């Protein structure tokens, strides 16, 4: 299963830099990230090439962080592609907790990362509908 690194951060200048510094020092490549702002704090979600190493390195520096399983769905990078997968979610009444995506190769491939409650069940549904779910190693070979 693909992994995402969640980091709890105080909402004040300098905190992003501190995370970025740890990642850089450990030679970890960031594929994409999002940041949820909750007022006094924020929750950072990272897709990196070595999630376990990132998690250990951040923990060692006393960051509150966690490794989370997510579904990384391979989609086409073209108009209508998002509509196609969103229709699948709707058809099976799948509730998405959080979602973000990034382009792997322009005009060809993109990855849609979703957080859902029952990962194995939803993985099966999405695969049955003809989508490819990327495992951790596959995600970083792209």
């Amino acid at each position, binding site marked *: 299963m693909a992994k995402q690194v*969640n980091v*709890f*951060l*105080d909402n004040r200048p300098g*905190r992003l830099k501190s995370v970025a510094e740890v990642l850089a020092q450990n030679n970890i490549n960031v594929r994409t990230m999002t940041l*949820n702002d*909750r*007022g*006094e*704090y924020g*929750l950072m979600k990272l897709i990196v090439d070595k999630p376990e190493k990132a998690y250990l390195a951040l*923990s060692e520096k*006393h*960051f*509150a*962080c*966690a*490794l*989370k399983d997510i579904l990384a769905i391979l989609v086409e990078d073209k108009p209508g592609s998002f509509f196609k997968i969103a229709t699948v979610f709707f058809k099976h009444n799948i509730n998405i*907790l*959080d979602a973000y995506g990034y382009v792997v190769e322009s005009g060809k491939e993109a990855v849609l990362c979703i957080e859902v409650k029952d990962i194995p069940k939803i993985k099966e549904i999405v695969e049955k509908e003809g989508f490819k779910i990327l495992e951790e190693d596959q995600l970083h070979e792209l």
Partner: protein
Amino acid sequence: MEIAYWNKEIETIDRDSLKHLQLKYLKETIGYALRTSLYKKRLQKAGITSPDDIKSLDDLKRIPFTTKDDLRESYPRGLLAVDIGDVIRIHTSSGTTGTPTVIYHTQQDLNNWTELLARCIIATGATRNDVFQNMMSYGLFTGGLGLHYGAEAVGMMVIPAGGGNTRRQIKLMKDFRTSVIHITPSYALHIASKLEEFGVSLNELALRKAYLGAEPYSENTRRKIEDLLRIDVYNSYGLSEMNGPGVSFECVYKCGMHTWEDNYILEVIDPKSGENLDDGEEGELVFTTLRRQATPLLRYRSRDLAYILPGDCECKRTHRRLSRITGRTDDMLIINGVNVFPSQIEEVIMQFPEVGHNYQIYIDKQENLDKLIVKVEIYSKLFTGDLAELEALKRRIKDELRASIVINPTVELHEPGSLPVFEGKAQRVVDKRPAL
């Protein structure tokens, strides 16, 4: 100036007769105290086994002080001096660690309390023709019910509005021509600032007096509220252990609060040595109830600091006047009129394994009201990375705090190790409210 009295004989009694009366009532009080488990032991140790062992007011000094801890340890019935069947009401307040304290009242206790408040109200020049809007919380908190009964005894039309809901307060004031309000200083400032927003001008109100209590405030704040609302403001002091409001109150001269010495013996002591201080010297206020049957308290240490104003008052009342409360001997915080100890907050926070052991209590003013922010650090090992869980944790801490301290705090989650580390509880408190 024409001075009105509720009970002129007692209010202007000469000092010698007052002391005579105090001695008589002190003996009665000792009689009640000897029926409680706490005092029975204590008084016996001091060689007092009957009211007749009290020969003069000086004998009071033979009695050890009573503290808030004594009240907590005596909860719920250790200080009850009458048959429970004769009790008609209780008031409780939370202690420093969440153990409550309780004060029982008989019908006569409540009648006495009500009389004190009637005296206070009349002393400010208010009359039965005034409309009284009580903006203090009702319920276990003594501020609401105390003044309520006093105002009814005077014959005022009472609006038991309770605290909060500013829009409704202003509408009530306007619709019913409220002339006297009972309110905390911070809420008075808040209401003054909201009048314009709700489209109400001072000319549409009939307001003329405000009784301010439950929070310390300065002479400057009094003047500010008087100017903003074009009213007279009278200072009120009380503490739940001594019934609540009505212990000390200002008269029309607004120069210190007359303390009803036929109901309370007031001592001012050096908080360190326990020695009595002279009038004019600042120290800790110590009270002895003189007219309370159900819960007599002897030499109760209030932890409030103030001094007695020497000299006579132009109103001819002989009951000595108390200065404003200048501080506390402990770390109690007063937030929007509610007493809060940092230890109560700590106790709640420590119930949550998801948060670390470091925390900070931050208090500031927001639109004239006190805002309490409790900052906690999340505990890395129990961090799941789930946003919904974090928000739920915040909500749970907030709900628990609200249940424990009766104030609605803002809870903030912070990174482990991000809050300053302190040794003591008091140092964790950052009070950003402007100085009085």
